[in-house]
């Protein structure tokens, strides 16, 4: 079957309807493949977005979405005037900031250390072991934290061995954030080092030889060759990380916190969850909850666009 050859110039002259018809007949199986995905997106991603309107309505389950009256920005005002607002803002940024401050450099250090290991077997063993926590579920991780931080748990035992006093660590607001950040590093350090190790394998080995001839020791080589070689990767990942600054691991906080630690642990998403369940006022506040999560999403998108803008101006890389 000979197909009619259409030149580019000829194609451009075609009216839009003809173009669309041609496109559908040429790519009908491709569209057929993507059809279930489009149905999925419509039903599970875009239809709920239509439901965001309840943030601007006084929604009651009995009335339904359509019949609930519009209230404008009432819920947003209520939220910004809520005494909890500042606590949530402070906690979200503090927890996120601490996770970036300590959690971001940790895998870089691990990758640098692994890079100095010449014994392949030892290196691979360390990698396999440090990847392991990544595969442990949050429920299990938080259970371990909870069990080990009890009054008579493992942490207390170790602290007592070094002369400290035993206590329930997770219930103490002073230690909540430390436990959160340390367990985050424990779970992610190995997994997050993979990308840096990949970048390290791309560094030109001749640079090291030249440095050795110049008399640089291994620490100096690490500082002056390996680290600069990693810098582009570090920059990109840091920008991406900054773009999700409000994305605190709320599922983990939900599993870890309790009323005694709300003061330091409660973030926007966990608050949304509690007011959705009616834990604060006795009945579910669907409209307020939707307003809070919309606020969270908008701030996130704003941060993403901002960091993306900065990165496209200062470096070569950007998301879009």
């Amino acid at each position, binding site marked *: 079957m000979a197909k009619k050859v259409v030149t580019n110039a000829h194609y451009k002259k075609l009216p839009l309807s003809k173009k*669309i018809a041609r*496109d559908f007949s*040429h790519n009908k199986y*491709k*569209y057929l*493949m*993507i059809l279930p995905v489009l149905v*999925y*997106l419509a*039903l*599970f*991603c875009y*239809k*709920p*977005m239509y*439901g965001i309107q*309840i943030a601007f309505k006084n929604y009651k389950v009995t009335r339904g979405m359509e019949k609930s009256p519009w209230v404008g920005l009432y819920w947003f005002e209520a939220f910004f005037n809520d005494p909890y607002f500042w606590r949530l803002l402070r906690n979200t940024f503090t927890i996120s900031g601490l996770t970036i401050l300590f959690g971001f450099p940790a895998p870089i250090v*691990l990758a640098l*250390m*692994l890079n*100095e*290991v010449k014994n392949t077997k*030892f290196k691979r063993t360390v990698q396999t*072991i*440090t990847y*392991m926590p990544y*595969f*442990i*579920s*949050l*429920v*299990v991780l938080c*259970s*371990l934290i909870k*069990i*080990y931080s009890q009054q*008579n748990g*493992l942490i207390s*035992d*170790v602290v007592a061995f070094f002369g400290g006093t035993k206590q329930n660590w997770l219930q103490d607001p002073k230690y909540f954030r430390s436990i959160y950040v340390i367990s985050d590093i*424990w779970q992610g350090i*190995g997994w997050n080092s*993979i*990308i840096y190790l*990949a970048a390290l394998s791309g560094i030109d080995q001749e640079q090291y*030889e030249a440095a*050795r001839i110049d008399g640089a020791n*291994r*620490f100096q080589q690490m500082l002056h060759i390996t680290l600069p070689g990693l810098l582009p990767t570090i920059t*990109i990942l840091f920008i991406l990380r900054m773009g999700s600054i409000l994305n605190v691991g709320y*599922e983990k906080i*939900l599993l870890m916190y309790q009323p005694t630690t709300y003061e330091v642990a409660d973030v926007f998403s966990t608050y949304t969850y509690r007011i*959705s369940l009616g834990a604060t006022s006795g009945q579910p506040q*669907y409209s307020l909850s*939707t307003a809070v*999560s919309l606020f969270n*999403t908008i701030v996130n*998108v704003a941060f*993403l666009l901002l960091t993306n803008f900065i990165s496209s101006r200062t470096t070569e890389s950007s*998301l879009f």
Partner: protein
Amino acid sequence: MTNAVHNNKIKESAGSKVFTVINALLLIFLCFLTLYPIWYCLVASFTATSYLSAHQGVLFIPHMFTTSAYRLAFTHPLLLSGYKNILLVLLVSLPINIILTLFTGYFLASKNVLFKPVIQFLIMFTMFFNGGMIPIFLNIRSLGLYNTLWALILPGAISVYNCIICRTAIQAVPESLSESAYLDGANDLVIVFRITLPLIMPTIAVLLLYYGIGHWNAWFPASIYLQDNNKLPIQNIMRSILIANSNLLNASGSETDKVDDFAETIKYSTIILTTVPVLCIYPFLQKYFVKGVMIGAVKG
């Protein structure tokens, strides 16, 4: 080559040796910190409760070895149903996940499709913007999925991140293969299953791991979409035993003693039971998922 190795040996100074040793010691210490919390849990699960409650300090091997914690765990009526439910979810989800991700990846990797930019935008947009907890919940209920296992399967049918990994893998397949198949009269459906799929099997393995681990470890959707305890997957049963302390068994008062017994002794054994399946699988897929992480990161 041999010359370079020889050179290295000569240049290996005392300082360099110290560096190697300290580096190795630090890494061994890190491995210890990683493994010990899990090892302690394993050891404690085989240790008699009486010994454990009286014991102070660290444990390295089981004392008064017993498997009673495991036998007790399996008498928990919801543990087995939890396993059954998560296996059901995995059996139904994974084929859906893989087929839709393969289709999406193939579509996104294809060229000269008029509506591709629009559809690509519609897909990517969901990565950054969603309806929020309540609108999503109301949607699940209006679709009639509330309190069914479908609520755990359908909303997570595809992950955009995994679709990008799949697209990148498909882009690496030489175009000449599909072109010659076109000339032989094959359509896209034939090509995707007969040519693309066999060539990206390592990536499919990674995607299976990602989706599988995601389903296995998820607890949040089930906690808001499911009402009946006998529908809950294993992680939610774990949560009720280990974290919430609101035991799902406390229906009848006479069982209270037994419930306390459960709560104390089977904590460690249930952790081991739900974690070991995953920890046994990942080392075999290590070289594949390392590749997967790299692909995903190239185009974030």
